[in-house]
């Protein structure tokens, strides 16, 4: 099961990287969202996919590992904040420059 999960994660990372390397700002953002999805799954998988019960003491043990879950929960919320920020950044960039093509959004090194 773990190995299958790792494959899923690997696919997510591959696609995320590919999208991040494209020229469209929107695809880049979608890529980063995929990155975070992949990372969350990876952390959980590396922590060991327990066969135990949910980590609630009101249920019968043995429980699955709560620590990766806590880590991932933190990560989800942080990636929410980052995604929101990135989205607005893209939005403002488009408003300001009327393009979402990263080739046209180059810095000033040519000048």
């Amino acid at each position, binding site marked *: 099961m773990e190995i299958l999960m790792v494959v899923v994660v690997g696919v997510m990372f591959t696609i995320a990287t590919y999208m991040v390397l494209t020229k469209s700002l929107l695809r880049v953002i979608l890529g980063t969202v995929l990155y975070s999805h992949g990372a969350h799954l990876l952390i959980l998988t590396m922590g060991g996919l327990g066969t135990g019960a*949910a980590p*609630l*003491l*009101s249920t019968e043990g043995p429980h699955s590992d709560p620590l990766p879950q806590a880590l991932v*929960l933190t990560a989800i*919320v942080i990636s929410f*904040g980052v995604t*929101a920020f990135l989205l*607005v950044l893209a939005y403002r960039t488009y408003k300001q420059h009327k393009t979402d093509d990263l080739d046209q959004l180059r810095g000033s090194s040519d000048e």
Partner: protein
Amino acid sequence: MKNNVSLQTVTRLTVFIVLAFSIYLLLAGHHAPGGGFIGGLMAASAIVLLYLSFGMKKISKVFTISYPYLIAVGLLLAMGTGFIGVLVGDPFLTQYYDYFYIPFLGTVELTTALIFDIGVYFVVVGVALFSILTIAEDDA
């Protein structure tokens, strides 16, 4: 925004249930699935639903909360619980709990972690709505 009667009717019914459920999630978080993050996101989505169905203007008149203040209050609450420990001489963010008897409710466990979680709740609600509304208002 056009008046969408069916959406508005459903919203009227569900919003309070969702909000109540979000508070339940917040309070239950210590023992069952839930907590400040989940409760906060739940509340945020309920309020977003209100905005979507009734429009910005109407809801802004009803909800006069300033979200930046909500964020600040949340952060202060969360950090403030940390200083309880410092005052007693324990490390920063030591949490305490005890059981109290409250009339009608029976024996209830009260924790400082709950205050911390309420802080988290406020911050999450604040940030989520603050971001969404800021973008929505920029519709110029």
